């Protein structure tokens, strides 16, 4: 049986699916409901995350995932192995990979996705050939991008490339236009929700604990995504998507720039957690640099605003 359920939607991920859009919505609702009831067996945990990562390819369903409270549940899920080894290391890392994919899908609304695809298309052609690339190489190198959403890929290709005649058919990349998100749009809201959830969990008290039962082997364990992982994710998002830097800089939980600068200035302890602390220091400096590259004037004004009172006191 073949079901074409996506006639009214712009996203292509569900249009050639054997599930109708209503069935996908029901499945996602049930899946998030299961996610809210830990603890989960390993196989169930991975199956839930895999299914959610598949369904959230459609941005309407990604928005539904946020409305159902899926983001908060996702960031609080016990993904890495604890001292009792209820979850294997493999499950933990696979779970984190699926979580990253889901977060990317939440941010990748059709406009952002088209902009990312345009950038990928532009990068696929070599400047040595005058921005030209053969059709075969074009499709080979961008197969993964095409598979993400064929409809949006076609739009991005139409706006970015043009066919030129010659000895063989080639595609010349032209300058893509930068799309802007209106603040009231659903797309802007989903990006903001994802960034806010990540920053909230970054500023939450640390989720590391030590194994109380096994005092002889006191090692660091993580119950959820580690802070260094969250910093890495934020850096990737800032580099990949235009709207993310603004969302981070507009975060109203606290002064985020001050928090990042404090983070990479934190001295390393000699005790357990040194590796994670080092990863956090490196991650926060990378995030700071990425923010400076994306929005230099805004970062400068925030730094001046955050540190000027102290500078004045020192001068006095």
């Amino acid at each position: 049986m073949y079901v074409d359920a996506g006639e009214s939607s712009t996203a292509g991920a569900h249009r050639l699916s054997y599930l109708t859009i209503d069935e996908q919505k029901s499945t996602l609702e049930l899946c998030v409901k299961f996610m809210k009831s830990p603890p989960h067996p390993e196989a169930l945990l991975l199956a839930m995350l895999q299914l959610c990562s598949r369904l959230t390819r459609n941005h309407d369903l990604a928005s539904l995932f946020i409305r159902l409270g899926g983001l908060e549940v996702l960031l609080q899920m016990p993904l890495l192995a604890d001292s009792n080894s209820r979850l294997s290391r493999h499950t933990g890392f696979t779970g984190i990979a699926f979580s990253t994919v889901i977060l990317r899908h939440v941010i990748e609304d059709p406009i952002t996705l088209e902009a990312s695809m345009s950038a990928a298309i532009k990068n696929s052609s070599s400047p040595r050939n005058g921005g030209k690339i053969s059709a075969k190489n074009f499709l080979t190198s961008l197969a993964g991008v095409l598979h993400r959403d064929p409809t949006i890929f076609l739009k991005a290709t139409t706006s970015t490339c043009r066919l030129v005649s010659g000895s063989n058919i080639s595609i010349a990349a032209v300058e893509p236009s930068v799309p802007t998100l209106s603040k009231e749009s659903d797309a802007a809201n989903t990006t903001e929700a994802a960034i806010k959830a990540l920053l909230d969990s970054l500023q939450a008290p640390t989720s590391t604990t030590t194994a109380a039962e096994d005092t002889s082997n006191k090692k660091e364990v993580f119950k959820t995504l580690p802070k260094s992982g969250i910093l890495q994710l934020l850096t990737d998002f800032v580099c990949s998507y235009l709207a993310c830097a603004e969302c981070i800089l507009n975060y109203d939980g606290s002064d985020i720039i001050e928090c990042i600068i404090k983070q990479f200035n934190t001295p390393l302890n000699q005790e357990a957690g040194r590796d994670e602390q080092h990863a956090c220091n490196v991650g926060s400096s990378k995030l700071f640099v990425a923010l400076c590259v994306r929005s230099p004037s805004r970062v400068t004004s925030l730094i001046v605003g955050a540190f000027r009172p102290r500078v004045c006191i020192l001068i006095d």
Partner: protein
Amino acid sequence: MALLLRLLDSVESSTVETKPDGSVTEKFPKWLPTVLLTLDSLAQLPLTEPIAQEGSAGKFEGREVC
């Protein structure tokens, strides 16, 4: 499809188990991951042409499908 979703619905209504001391535990059947992965397979974008479409039922890539 409806059967699979009905199965998931039945899990939803039977997961909560109240113990005599009042505590509530969640129980998931062992077949639940299999059902979820089946739905995942059904939800993904097929890379080939559909087996049967309107007007071409019974044929796939020019061959008869039994």
